[in-house]
């Protein structure tokens, strides 16, 4: 008999812990953050750029310009949004996030020439005041829906679902439904708030055509209408969203984050962002609207490399959420005893759902919120957006592109057969696209 401790491949420690937790509670498990699964599917890491050598000429990084200007909503809106960078802040609610976090994100995005988005709780006035470009989300719950706020926005995002939990509504546990959040959402204080999965006034894509038109009427046809969805049947869903009249389609892959959700939805629903961007592009090409309807990809975008690869595969811009929160100090080794009180450690925390965020981001506790300095947080968000943009430019210049939006699939090779098959890109070392 061996002295080596052996671990079951089936009943791994996390599985044993999960079973025991459910045996104690009688309920499914809820947590925040997003999927914790090992990445065994094709990801952006399975692609590599093919910079110039003799067949292409690179741009000089020090002298030759590489544009990052991003224009979204050119299809029908009178005033498309114009950003300095193609990295945007995704919708995260005031409620899931603290006041300080929302304002820091807005201010950070503004300084970087980017945008930020409201979330499932309505608009925070300070968010508007600190934003350059604000996207107003219209979600199934309609928490905090306010026509006056909608008309202050630079774009409207009709959200059908999100990548971390497509097919279900939002969730905000009672510890975060404080007096002020309850008032904002017209809810009783302390309830475990569940958002509906469906919009209250339309059901299918045909009704949604009329809904989109209503939003245009409400905003005088001035601002772009985005339609956001979690990545599931992307090829068909994107075509339906385009048919419904979207100016911009947002597809949020399964690596996307959340403030709270049943854990199994985060782990076992949706498709990866890499697969989603390929399907989304193919869908728009299939109906002749690629380029006319802009595409934003979201879900686990970490850096300028992921963003550049998403653009090369067909996106016009990317959203970041979790990465922006990490910039605000999420999972940073500060207040370590408070991480431990949650049963976790810095770099391992996914306890946004508890409302006890040690660094003041995903909490409504006034004392914890104070730990997030708005000015410092905003600067860090700006820095991240700018650093990511520089990374994208570096890759684009190396590939001979004078605009990050000129990156294309041909600029990359696949490092795995799966990525080759998903992206339609030859496997490195071969001229073969697997599956074709």
């Amino acid at each position, binding site marked *: 008999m061996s002295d080596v401790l052996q671990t079951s491949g089936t009943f791994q420690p996390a599985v044993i812990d999960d079973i025991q937790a459910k045996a104690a*509670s*009688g*309920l499914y498990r*809820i947590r925040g953050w997003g999927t914790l699964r090992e990445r065994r599917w094709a990801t952006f890491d399975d692609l590599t750029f093919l910079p110039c050598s003799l067949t292409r000429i690179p741009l000089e990084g020090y002298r030759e310009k590489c544009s990052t200007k991003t224009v979204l909503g050119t299809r029908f809106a009178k005033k498309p949004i114009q950003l300095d960078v193609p990295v945007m802040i995704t919708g995260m609610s005031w409620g899931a996030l603290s006041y300080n976090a929302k304002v820091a994100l807005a201010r950070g995005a503004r300084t970087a020439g980017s945008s930020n988005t409201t979330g499932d709780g309505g608009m925070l006035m300070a968010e508007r005041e600190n934003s350059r470009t604000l996207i107003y989300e219209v979600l*199934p*719950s*309609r*928490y905090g*829906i*306010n*026509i*006056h706020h*909608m*008309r202050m926005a630079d774009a409207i995002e009709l959200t059908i679902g999100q990548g971390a939990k497509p097919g279900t509504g939002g969730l905000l*546990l*009672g510890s975060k439904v404080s007096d002020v959040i309850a008032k904002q*959402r*017209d*809810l*009783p204080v*302390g*309830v*475990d708030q*569940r958002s*509906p999965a469906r919009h*209250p*006034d*339309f*059901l299918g894509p045909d*009704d949604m055509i*009329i*809904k989109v*038109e*209503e939003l245009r*009427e*409400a*905003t005088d*046809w001035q601002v772009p209408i985005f339609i956001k969805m979690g990545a599931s049947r992307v090829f068909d869903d994107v075509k339906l969203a385009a048919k419904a009249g979207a100016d911009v389609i947002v597809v949020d892959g399964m690596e996307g984050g959340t403030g709270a959700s049943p854990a199994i939805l985060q782990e076992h629903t949706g498709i990866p962002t890499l697969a989603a961007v390929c399907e989304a592009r193919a869908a728009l090409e299939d109906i002749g609207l690629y380029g006319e309807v802009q595409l934003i990809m979201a879900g686990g975008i970490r850096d300028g490399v992921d963003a550049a690869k998403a653009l090369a595969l067909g996106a016009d811009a990317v959203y970041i959420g979790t990465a922006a929160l990490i910039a605000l100090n999420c999972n940073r080794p500060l207040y370590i005893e408070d991480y431990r009180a949650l049963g976790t450690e810095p770099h391992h925390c996914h306890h946004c759902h508890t409302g006890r965020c040690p660094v003041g981001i995903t909490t409504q506790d006034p004392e914890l919120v104070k730990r997030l300095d708005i000015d410092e947080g905003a600067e860090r968000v700006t820095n991240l957006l700018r650093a990511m943009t520089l990374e994208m430019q570096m890759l684009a210049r190396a590939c001979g592109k004078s605009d990050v939006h000129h990156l294309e699939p041909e600029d990359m090779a696949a490092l795995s057969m799966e990525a080759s098959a998903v992206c339609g890109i030859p496997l490195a070392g071969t001229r073969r696209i697997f599956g074709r």
Partner: protein
Amino acid sequence: MAEIICGARPAREINAEIRRAIAAGDREIIVQDPGARHNLGVAILEPVRIRFVGSVGYYCAGLIDGPRVEIDQSAGWGLAESMMSGEVIVRGSAGNGAAAAIRGGTVVIHGDAAARLGVSMKGGTVLVAGRCGYMAGFMGQKGRLVVCGDAGDAFADSMYETVCYVGGRIEGLGTDAVIERPSADEAAWLDSTLAQYLPGARRRGEDFQKVLAGRKLWNFDKREWKVWQEAL
């Protein structure tokens, strides 16, 4: 007073004309021949009176704050959705999702309301002279929903603090919905409100059933496992 003839024009032009009339100072606007067009009278934010002489389509008076909107005949889906204040009066019946997500104001339907009446309502008052369809009041957060006739299945499902009153038979209660008798004050409020808006309803407040949340879905708790299993 301004009179707008819809003719063959799209809703966008008609709405633009309504807004021009309001900007010019008109406080009473009559829209002739609406032809069940969608999205008429959306996002009107002034305390004006608008009357649609005929039927309207989806989302009529959606996202309004302040006006009194009258519809002589029937309305399509999403009537007055997300309104913040004002009055919306429908002389006929209303389609799916009437008064969805309203935050304030009063919606009055003289005929019947289809499925999902008042879903996710966050305030305000909804009054229906006839009956309502499936899943009315679903996830209602605040406000009052009054149905003088019969209510469909899954009534008042998964609610927070919306209070419903039903004058007729309830086909089936939704998850976590419970029935109580209205208090004397509530019966008096029903009497006065119906006298004001639906005098033809001929219902006495004390004859209504009051339906509200049993609060078993308010917090995720294994003691209520059966309720959570059935929750929509």
